[in-house]
């Protein structure tokens, strides 16, 4: 099974645990987790080793949409899964278009919802789809921009 480094961003420790538990229960990959409690904390912890992100919306200091926009503006192309209580269609559009998120799942989520959200990005061997030396080089380049 492949190893994937995931950034889990939520001001609720309970929800961060719920995301990790759901991912571990799916057994699609061996996840290593980095946790952040708001968008600013997530920006500080983001680096080129992160391969996928699970991001809440409503957080103090910096929202999930603001954080997603910030990493997209720096050129990061890794999958961003919004995991949020916000349900109105306007909010979904905002997360996907303005924030640049790839997927959107609402709380409380089931394992099935989580699987559907990530299955486009993780192959049957538990590796990120599209992960290659070329992608790794791109990540390192953008990491330099983020940290400068």
């Amino acid at each position, binding site marked *: 099974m492949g190893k994937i480094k995931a950034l889990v961003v939520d*001001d609720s420790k309970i929800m961060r645990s719920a995301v990790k*538990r759901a991912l571990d229960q799916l057994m699609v990959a061996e996840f290593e987790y980095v946790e952040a409690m708001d968008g600013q904390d997530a920006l500080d912890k983001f680096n080129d080793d992160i391969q996928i992100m699970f991001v809440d919306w409503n957080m103090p200091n910096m929202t999930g949409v603001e954080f997603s926009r910030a990493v997209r503006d720096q050129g990061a192309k890794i999958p961003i899964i919004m995991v949020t*209580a*916000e349900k109105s269609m306007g*909010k979904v559009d905002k997360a996907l278009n303005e924030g640049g998120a790839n997927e959107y799942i609402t709380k*409380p989520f089931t394992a099935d919802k989580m699987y559907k959200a990530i299955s486009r990005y993780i192959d049957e061997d538990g590796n990120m789809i599209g992960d290659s030396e070329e992608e790794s080089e791109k990540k390192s380049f953008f990491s330099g921009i983020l940290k400068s």
Partner: protein
Amino acid sequence: MITKKISKLDHIPIEIVEQVKKSVINTFASICGEEPLYIEKPDKSGPLNGMIGNIAVFNTEKTLSLMLAIPKETALSLSEIFIGMELPFESDDMGDLIGEISNILAGDVAANIEKVGFRGQSSLPTATRGSDLTLFMPNKPPTEEMKFSGSTGEFWLNMALSESK
């Protein structure tokens, strides 16, 4: 139009009350796997030994405050369902859980009341724990109190509609 109704602020429009009721039922059904029962004409609630989750859905003009009053036994049952184990009632994690349930509820309320013309965003939640809790509403805005009974126990949802400052 709902905007005209809520501009008077002497009562919470029935359209909003009904949508909030739906949201409570949806939210607890999705967490517990079973819809809670709305209790018609309940006895007036007394002081609470438990937790209150506070959150609001607001816009520049109006704020709909939601207070989810959860007795201790219901909170313990909810923790077992939500995270798979019973949390200590006095723990920070229990406060986190009630705040998160309030957050989920507010997201559903915001989506539902938008359908009847109240467009707003959710605030960040807070949670209060105590043994003799009573809700007071300064300035007496219009309020509604609803009681529910579910697989995890009984709980109340109080709401108040006020001017946004």
